[in-house]
């Protein structure tokens, strides 16, 4: 019998701990599939974040280093400068990259570090219990915006791809989602494309992934997936935001 679906080699035999309906598990798997398919398992080095994705080292069967909250891009810079031949990516949430680690992400992007950031945007701080993130939408209710995000008090949802697109060091920026099969296929392609950019050393690459957090959005998995289409992707439009020739 022909096997058409199996566990990627770059994933360990472990069960994901993520909440039901969470996007992190899908994204972990997509990265592992891309690493396998591009034959990169031997050369890839992952930088894990603080945030729900932090336990990915229980799942990835690849060399991995944990970083402090927000510092992924700086740590990845250090690794990549020493080992330019390795594929280096950091995995970061929206709190991680768009709040505490804005400086590190922004300047790694501006230096054109040939690293890839997998940026998981679920609009909240998942791990710490659903507080407002920089990417929380206008009027969105979180534990620290109980009346909904008020832009007069709490500012506006940060569009990382659009901001980074202005930096000359960035080479590939795409926003995708993991809320339905067609979107997941696109997300996988985007990850592969970002890695290609890194291998060709065209500059800094980042894939922003709109990812459901049913637990903290207080929605069912199905509602969360629909919400990404109906609401979230209006604020964060999907597609390639920037690509220089690779």
């Amino acid at each position, binding site marked *: 019998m022909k096997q058409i679906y199996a566990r990627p080699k770059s994933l360990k035999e472990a069960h994901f701990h993520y909440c039901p309906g969470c996007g992190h598990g899908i994204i972990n798997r997509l990265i592992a599939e891309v690493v396998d398919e591009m034959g990169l398992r031997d050369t890839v080095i992952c930088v894990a974040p603080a945030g729900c994705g932090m336990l990915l080292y229980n799942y990835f069967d*690849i060399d991995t280093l944990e970083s402090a909250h927000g510092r992924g891009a700086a740590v990845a810079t250090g690794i990549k400068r020493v*080992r330019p031949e390795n594929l280096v990516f950091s995995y970061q949430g929206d709190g991680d990259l768009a709040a505490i680690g804005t400086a590190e992400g922004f300047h790694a992007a501006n230096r054109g570090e040939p690293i890839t950031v997998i940026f998981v945007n679920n609009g909240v701080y998942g791990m710490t219990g659903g507080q407002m993130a920089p990417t929380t939408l206008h009027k969105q209710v979180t534990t620290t915006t109980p009346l909904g995000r008020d832009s007069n008090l709490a500012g506006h949802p940060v569009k990382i791809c659009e901001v980074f697109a202005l930096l000359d060091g960035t080479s590939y920026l795409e926003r995708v989602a993991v809320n339905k099969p067609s979107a997941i296929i696109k997300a996988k392609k985007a990850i592969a494309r970002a890695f290609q950019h890194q291998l060709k050393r065209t500059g800094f690459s980042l894939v922003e992934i709109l990812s459901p957090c049913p637990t903290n959005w207080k929605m069912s998995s199905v509602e969360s997936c629909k919400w990404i289409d109906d609401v979230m992707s209006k604020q964060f439009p999907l597609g390639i935001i920037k690509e220089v020739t690779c």
Partner: protein
Amino acid sequence: MSGNAALGEAAVLAGCTCYFGYPITPQNELTEHMAKRVPETGGVFIQSESEIAAINMVLGASVAGARAMTSSSSPGISLKQEGISYLAADELPAVIVNMVRGGPGMGNISPAQSDYLQATRGGGHGDYKTIVLAPASVQELADLVPVAFDLADEYRNPVIILGDGMLGQMMEPVSFDNIKPKKDYPKDYILTGAKGRPSRMIRSLLFDTKEEEEHNWKLFRKYQRMEQNEVRYETFLIDDAEMIIIAYGIAARIARGAIKRLRQENLKVGMIRPITVWPFPMKVIQEAAQQVSDFFVFEMSTGQLIEDVKLALNGKGHIHFYGRPGGVIPTPLELSRIVSRHCYLAQRRKK
């Protein structure tokens, strides 16, 4: 050569291939030296966007197997504490230089010794320690750099070089003859991509409290080994001393001048100079306390070293203190006057 440049050159010669730094006075000559020299050797120099970024780049470079260094001065070191704690937790080698200035807060850019407790107690969060080397001359600054890198590799732990603005900026002749070629340390932990071996994972996150406790005990045992094996100090005229000054770094340099004056006045004053301020040279102070009952702590702060001297003496002997915080540099004459007064009072007490 300035102390800062000498330190940088020594680092390059000791095989430091990665330097990450953010400008801050009084250590800029070091960053500038590295900007020129590290790329010449094919290494990596990045002027980072902040001290936080610099120390995290060090973390990345270290886990990738390079000899990595960063430097700063007091406010910048406060920012680096996050990364230093992670380096210690992850058991990764690195060298961090602190050319201390007057603080707290922004303070001023003059030499001070007010970061002693921050450096010797871990400084960042959690139960951890770093070996802290405190040179007292430009030559020693250069000589201790390869030592710092070797200790970092040996114990897989960050090592701090604790200087100050004066040491960093003063010019003295310096020789680099003492820099031996780097030893081969096992690199069986570094991340290179999992080619031909199981994947590796370097982390400090241990959700399981039992595992975390074990990890902390393991680190603790390592720090105990450092305490046993890595204590360094220098003594100066202590054999016949009736009073012993305890000072480190630039303060010890000043104290040496003061002691020469005091000896001319026939006052038998000697000095114990910790070179590692952590691990602290407890034993030599305890041994000295069998003959000497008066110890004089001198430092350019309101009194931080005094805690370690108290711990060493454990109630034996009298401790006198003179400190000048805020970037004020006392002269040997000033110190000798203060010490001679204390000698006089001590003698009177004995009678």
